[in-house]
């Protein structure tokens, strides 16, 4: 593996200084590989990020950029084989999960960290009633009785504002609408009030009108329980409203990390800039919509140097040979901006250009 550059990147500066035993979750130089017939696909190549309690980190990137795989590695639900964590550490409250025994990890899942999946219909078991599936959390982790679990399930459904919860607790997943199903998924993840929630594109499968409601609910519950939230998405609009910080991923690496407003105001990586410019805007009506040229690289044959160089408008000779580390981004007075980093040799030009 070649993720050798400066281990503690700018990304971690902000949260590490928070003190008090370090951040809730810190991912360090995580690398995940998949063995495929075409060779080893490097889905994640040295990703580092961290999340604190009450904080929302949005992980942004297109399909295949490794954002979901990172989440699966954190949760410990990576399909192995073919997947394999090749290197790195996942520190949850300072404890390295990758070396922890499987039974300990299983007990952490659901209890301390939980995940919300993209497609709620396929993530709910079609043959079990939603009440049973919600109650299962209490039965597995808390040893609750059947009756008790059912009561808690009704509470949870009410908490995520499912109308007529008590009447619907014995209904099956297919009897709920998409938004309601996603609420049930959220309720399941929140059941035991975990410290960390990973939401893997929670609104992608939903109608636009329902998306806002679900995100609002998620943000509200996160504030209420003071949880850390990792929001995986490719929807820049969703991110703007709820995230505190953003990590942009490309080809298995974090290419830029920044507090949300600063990233939107002045991106420091050409890829981020391209993403922001490719959002349709009303004031650009009638003009051609910008698109990043080319396609994402094949994970079995990543480009040399900076993975983005074949598609980058600023690419030079240097970009094809030298892989940029995550540079700390400096403000006008040459002082580092807290939590900002860009993996581009020409971040200055991008930031100011």
């Amino acid at each position, binding site marked *: 593996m070649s993720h050798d550059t400066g281990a503690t990147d700018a990304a971690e500066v902000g949260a590490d200084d928070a003190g008090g035993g370090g951040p809730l979750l810190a991912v360090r130089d995580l690398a995940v590989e998949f063995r495929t017939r075409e060779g080893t696909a490097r889905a994640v190549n040295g990703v580092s990020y961290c999340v604190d309690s009450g904080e929302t980190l949005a992980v942004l990137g297109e399909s295949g950029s490794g954002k979901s795989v990172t989440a699966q590695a954190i949760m410990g*639900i990576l399909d192995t084989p073919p997947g394999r964590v090749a290197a790195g550490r996942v520190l949850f409250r300072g404890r390295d999960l990758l070396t922890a025994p499987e039974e300990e990890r299983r007990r952490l899942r659901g209890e301390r960290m939980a995940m919300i999946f993209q497609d709620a219909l396929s*993530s709910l*078991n079609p*043959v079990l009633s939603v009440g049973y599936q919600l109650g299962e959390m209490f039965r597995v982790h808390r040893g609750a009785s059947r009756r008790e679990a059912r009561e808690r399930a009704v509470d949870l459904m009410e908490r995520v504002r499912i109308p007529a919860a008590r*009447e619907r607790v014995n209904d*099956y997943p297919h009897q709920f609408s998409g938004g309601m199903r996603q609420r049930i998924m959220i309720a*399941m*993840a929140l059941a035991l009030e975990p410290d960390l929630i990973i939401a893997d594109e929670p609104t992608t499968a939903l109608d636009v009108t329902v998306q806002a409601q679900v995100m609002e609910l998620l943000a509200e519950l996160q504030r209420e329980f003071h949880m850390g939230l990792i929001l995986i998405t490719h929807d820049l609009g969703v991110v*703007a*409203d709820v995230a505190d910080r953003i990590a942009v991923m490309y080809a298995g690496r974090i290419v830029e990390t920044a507090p949300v407003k600063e990233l939107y105001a002045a991106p420091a990586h050409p890829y981020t800039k391209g993403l922001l410019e490719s959002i349709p805007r009303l004031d650009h009506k009638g003009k051609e919509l910008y698109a990043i040229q080319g396609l994402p690289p094949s994970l079995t044959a990543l480009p040399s140097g900076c993975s983005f160089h074949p598609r980058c408008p600023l690419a030079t000779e240097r970009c094809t040979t030298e892989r940029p580390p995550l540079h700390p981004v400096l403000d006008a007075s040459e002082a580092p901006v807290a939590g900002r980093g860009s993996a581009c040799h020409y971040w200055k030009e991008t930031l100011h250009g």
Partner: protein
Amino acid sequence: MPEQRDTPGPGPLAAREEAAAEAMTVSSSPETARSLGSDAWHDLRRNPIFIVSGLLILFLVVIAIHPSLIATRDPLFCELGRSLDGPAPGHWFGFDAQGCDVYTRTVYGARASIAVGVCATLGVALIGAVVGGLAGFYGGIWDSLLSRTTDIFFAIPLILGAIVFLSMITLTGIWPVVLVIAALGWPQIARIARGAVITAKQHDYVQAARALGAGNGRMLLRHILPNAVAPVIVMSTIMLGTFIALEATLSFLGVGLQPPTVSWGVDISAASDGMQFRNAPHILLYPAAALSVTVLAFIMMGDAVRDALDPKLR
């Protein structure tokens, strides 16, 4: 562009949701929630094939348990003087070579046939589901080991294997037959169970259950099994019929059940002498017809159950 996220606007959101709640309660149809099982039952009750085969099987099971309900005589009470006699008052099916009442023996024969069929099927389903389920769930080396073992058993011809084993052991009664069928018949179920478990395992909800802290046992039993059990049930029901036929085959060949036991296979075997058949065809006809009807009933039942559990196949 980036908006303030701290806009706790309960006003419009809450209002919207109240409206949504209202709409839901209004539009919620009287249709009740049904589990997979009750859904299948709902379909089955409307399927004439199921009704016919179900009634037949119910009848067969009842007379297997209480043959004296419709046959008052003793199946082992025979009068050699009436050997091969035709139908007579009170003996509508006639007499066999030993002078036993064919009707009584046919009724009593249901017990052994159905007992062998049911017990062998239970054994086969259990072994097959456990082996196939574990192979499919754990994969890797376990899958290779268990699947190759399955292949080895699959390679043993059922009838030939049963003949070899049964002619070696001296025990009599239904249990040796049940054990041999169970020991040799499970590979087919194991393959089906393995495939079904692999399919079910890949569903997102199994991954989701894992992400929320479910252990292997819970995932296998609660989340995978209910979604993988349908093909096993269907296959087992169909196999039940064939096992009843197999018992008759083995008895006919002289290695299955032995004479003091009353079974259709034993009677068919006894009646299959060419001379006897020409003179008194009824002694072959009745047990053979009973056997065919029973096998048919179970196969029809299997078909109906498959239709109910897997609507896509219709």
